[in-house]
């Protein structure tokens, strides 16, 4: 019996999701605050993702429709100086075993650089790399990613 047992170790899908925003805020004293901040957001039903800490700042991505709730929560916690960016899209490339594929990140970053799309945040897992970019760049980025990863299925609605 013949079956295609193991898929090629390549990028299999490129997916884009519109309607995201990101928030960057300065921590008051220490990283211990991160737990409290995320707790308040979770209790307010904010679906944060890709949280990252850089020195004394916390960044995270969230659905745009939850941005106002998040800002309100943060204000109530005394985080007045939050920087928000709305109108973003999350572009994710998938492979069954990303950690045994080399050079995927640079292929993505090169496309972004060439098209002038700033990568606002990046998240990775064993089977995906996600980049947050401004939504207006999506139409340029997706076809280019399609060229760089020719075996991938593009799951994007470019309108």
């Amino acid at each position: 019996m013949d079956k295609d047992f193991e898929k090629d170790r390549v990028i299999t899908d490129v997916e884009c999701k519109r309607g995201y925003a990101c928030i960057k805020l300065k921590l008051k004293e220490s990283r211990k605050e991160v737990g409290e901040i995320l707790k308040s957001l979770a209790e307010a039903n904010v679906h944060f993702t890709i949280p990252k800490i850089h020195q004394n700042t916390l960044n995270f991505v969230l659905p745009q429709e939850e941005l106002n709730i998040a800002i309100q929560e943060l204000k109530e916690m005394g985080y007045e100086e939050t920087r928000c960016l709305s109108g973003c899209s999350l572009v994710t490339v998938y492979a069954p075993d990303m950690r045994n594929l080399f050079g995927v990140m640079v292929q993505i970053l090169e496309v972004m650089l060439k098209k002038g799309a700033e990568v606002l945040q990046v998240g990775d897992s064993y089977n995906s790399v996600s980049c947050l970019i401004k939504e207006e760049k999506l139409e340029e980025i997706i076809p280019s990613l399609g060229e760089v990863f020719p075996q991938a299925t593009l799951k994007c609605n470019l309108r």
Partner: protein
Amino acid sequence: MRIIVQKFGGTSLAEPAVRLAAVKKVIEAIHRGFSPVMVVSAMGRSPQPYATDTLLSLLREIAQDVDVDPRERDLIMACGEIISTAVMAQLLKVMGIKAIALTGAQAGIVTTSEYGNARILRIDTDYIMHLLKEGYVPVVAGFQGAAEPVPPQVHGDITTLGRGGSDTTASALGAALNAERVEIYTDVDGVMTADPQIVSNAKVLPRLSYEEVSEMAHQGARVVHPRAIEIAMEYGVDVWVKNTRSDHPGSQITSYEELPFEEKERITAITNLGSIAYLHIGVQEEDKPYVEVEIYKMLGRLRVNAYLASMSNDRITFAVTRQNLWKVRRLLDSVVVPVLRDGKPRLYLFDTGSDRISFLIQREELSKLGDSAEVEVIPVEIMENTSLVSVIFSHPSLLQKVMVRMLSVLNEEDIPFIQIADSRLSASALLNESDTARAVRALHKEFGL
């Protein structure tokens, strides 16, 4: 015919007593009405005589400074499993069971020709099916196959499948033979809620989804290899992880849909992935995208995977395995990345602090360029001893709550975290390696596992 594939790893074959226990598992399967196919790894681990690394050292010892040809390396690496097949087939025969030893190629496993990391293309099952119908137990060498012959070759070269190869053989054979189940025998009772060497009361999970076990494996749990799970998931083969030395029912790995209601949204396990080095490289904000691309390009060429990547305005941050750190150090040390800024080159010179002489020479050389180029010395900060502790869960909707509880426990325990990360089925924190055991134990308790 009810076919079962039973795979026995190196620790399940290392000594006569445990080999006998393995054979008993095959006999029990026959008594349960199954037609078993046995898949075996090499016996024991280095320095035991037939372990893969021991066999490989026979070639390496000939001349340390001469690389071993990948073709011959695969040939010798495949011998350990072949020895196991003959030993186990003989043992089965002594116990009164009709058995036959097969290399991967004889079992019909056809692979790509990437020595050391071949992929299974197909399995010609006619011969194994014939043997099963004749009442034999085929004992198949795991971790190997053969590439298609390239004329004038009559037989293709022997290839090995790379990490997790025997699990992959078992899973692929299970799919090809439409087996009722694949059983992976090891030295623990099943997939555990944490590393039992850290958490003494870690429990065996009776059931897990393919996705949960994949996540666990990638986040550091030593369970079934993800490649094997990928195949099982694709073809809907149920996999069981069991202990060769006990009668514990083990863990069933199946589709998410098959999980009972109460397990569809649950915290599954705590994992830890050690030996991680975390790097920070500061660059000027305006040049960051260019420098970043150059760094990732170099890492890609070195076949070093960077993960836990993070973006900030003026820092490039990523993790590599400590095993790869020397390569990264050698790569970055004194390397110069040029960026053209307003028609004038800006040269970034990296300093990892590990090769002062090269760095000083390089800086001296660059200083001769005078005003024609701007030289920026970039210290690379390296945290060498970090580990990733993760909470694994069964449904993505749990992410936010799990992340919050995980951070709360770390705060209560006064365990500082360096970075946090999420994926579809896990929330993770990068910690100092010395805090790992304490964090795993505290999280295991908090989540009631």
